[in-house]
């Protein structure tokens, strides 16, 4: 079997008047990987996603799918959840999902069957005939997710997919997305919820003012920052201030927060043992910390 295709964004640029909203943005969304897309409001996330989906004209750069320039047909197989929500408020939810499935080339029967299956998984099996506007916002969001997953998409471009969802809904949605990931589908999702990004992402693209500030796998990014450690000894940890190669960031009685720019100095741990060492552990920064660091 050939390896599943990957989505590549090459030097993507978009201007609105004099303002450069997306400035030379490049990254890849690898098959079977969840790529988080974070950045402040107006950083260019939505514009980038709309250019990937072909609903916003590209001013510079290219989007590649499976190693070649992306086509209409490629995009038609993607699953897309636009930033501004909304399907047809006054139409039954099963009916409109069936319609969207048909537009993506499913037969009426298949589209209805798959839509019913997804709605049941979201706990909306008994409300398939209800109008969208009669559902709660969270449930409307689930229908929106179903619309993106309906046709067995080859890639998922999800703009703020988790906003407005309760934790249970987030979990059931993550389950569904994970299934697609296991099939080798690349997933790009933007979010403001950094805890979720931290939990879900395999890699991360941090955008600020239209430019990529940081990009890499979660592990790479975590190890990129300065190495910090926590140390706890039996007595007051003030002695650490005298140690060479050690920057003490904070001391609180027997506990201290250290930064070790050149790694762990020789003899440090031996002396710590003499001070009745209780704990010495590296601190893994959260992606939220990294995000704050690079966008500061």
């Amino acid at each position: 079997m050939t390896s599943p295709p990957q989505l590549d964004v090459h030097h993507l640029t978009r201007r609105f008047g004099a303002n450069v909203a997306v400035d030379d943005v490049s990254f890849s969304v690898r098959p079977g990987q969840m790529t988080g897309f974070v950045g402040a409001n107006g950083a260019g996330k939505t514009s980038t996603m709309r250019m990937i989906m072909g609903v916003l004209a590209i001013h510079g750069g290219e989007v590649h799918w499976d190693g070649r320039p992306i086509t209409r047909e490629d995009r038609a197989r993607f699953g897309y959840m636009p930033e501004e929500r909304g399907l047809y408020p006054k139409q039954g939810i099963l009916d409109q999902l069936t319609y969207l499935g048909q537009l993506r080339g499913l037969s009426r029967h298949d589209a209805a069957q798959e839509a019913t299956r997804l709605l049941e998984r979201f706990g909306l099996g008994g409300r398939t005939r209800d109008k969208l506007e009669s559902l709660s916002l969270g449930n409307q969001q689930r229908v929106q997710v179903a619309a993106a997953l309906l046709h067995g998409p080859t890639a998922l471009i999800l703009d703020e997919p988790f906003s407005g969802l309760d934790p249970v809904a987030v979990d059931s949605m993550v389950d569904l997305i994970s299934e697609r990931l296991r099939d080798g589908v690349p997933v790009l999702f933007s979010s403001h919820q950094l805890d979720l990004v931290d939990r879900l992402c395999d890699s991360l693209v941090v955008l600020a003012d239209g430019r990529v500030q940081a990009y890499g796998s979660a592990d790479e990014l975590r190890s990129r920052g300065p190495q910090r450690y926590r140390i706890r000894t039996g007595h007051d940890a003030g002695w650490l201030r005298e140690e060479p190669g050690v920057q003490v960031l904070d001391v609180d009685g027997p506990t201290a927060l250290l930064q070790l720019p050149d790694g762990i100095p020789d003899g440090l741990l031996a002396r710590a043992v003499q001070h009745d060492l209780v704990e010495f552990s590296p601190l893994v920064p959260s992606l939220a910390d990294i995000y704050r660091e690079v966008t500061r």
Partner: protein
Amino acid sequence: MSTTTQSPDRTPTAAAPARTPAHPWLVVTVREVVVKLTDRSFVLSTALMVVLIVAGVGISAFMGGRSTTFDVGAVDTSTGTVAQGAQQLIAAGGDDLQVTSYDSEDALRAAVLDEEVDAGLVQGQDGFTLIGNDEIDPTLQRAVSSAVEEHVLSQNAEAAGTTLAELREGATVSTTLIGADAGRATAAQVAGFIFAFLFYMSAIMFGMTIANSVLEEKQNRVVEILATAIPVRQILYGKVLGNSLLAFGQIALFGVVGLIGVNVAGMASDVGWLLSASGWFAAFFVAGFIALAAVWAVLGSLASRSEDLQSSTGPVIGVIMVALFAGLFAQGMLLQVASFVPVVSSVAMPIRLLAGEVPLWQPVVSLLLTLVAAGLLIRLGERIYQRAVMHSGAAISWRQAFRLES
């Protein structure tokens, strides 16, 4: 795609690769039609219109078919005879006349005041008097007057030694219409009014439907999802086609209901000519409607809220009004010119065709012009629609829309 078949819990049908459907516009068309047909207000308004048509046919059949009985009082044999003469004239009009005798003129006057009789006929020194209460039915009055005239004339003729028939000889005027459109003028006007009104009503009603349905998708950003699935112009085609079909279907329904009603009411012979004139109207209706539909779709795509739509639809409603009034009131040269202006011609040309002989090339050329205009408007509409419908934010003007970038 082979990668979509791995997951064990996916149904085999869903594993079929998604692709653009063979006829995306057809999927859109079907949705437009189904949504409208399941829309309660549309169904109700259509049903109401059908009820109105049936009621209209019923009332006119009732009005045409009912008969009145007039009661006329008379005092002596002379007035009695005259009143009997009026009876034949009344009977010829489908009504009935009863003559009641009274003993004296006072008794007759009392009977008129008590409304026992509709009128009383008395003979005085210088002629006959028809006595009524508050008013006298004109039909009755005409009939009695004719009868009195007949009676007096024949008496006078007898006195002069001749007969009424001899006196009248050669005095009758008969009419013969030698123009080609003899007898059609009034009927053509009525038909023209019906055609003009149907076009006006459908063009505005379904035009607003198209504009609103475009706006709904723009407002809710569904269009962004649709645009990733199928080319945007396919959405436009589907909407124009779907709503056109609905408009034609509704008019056809009204027509069929009207014809059945007319047949049931036994009035079919009166309106048969209308049917033969409808062919051209149907052709012009279709062409004119499609030309307008593209404009409506663009209006929907330019708006950002339904309030915008209220103000921006003014010009197109204006054009439809011009078509309506040109059809109803234009004469001569003006009507000839109007019958070649696309959209306006949808009313004006059928009316010319109803009113008189028009060389065959004229409706054909006019129809072609409308079709060309429809094609151009759809092309133009496509370009604006594609850009405007993706543009969120405030409403945009036509001028801005041309400069917009997708």
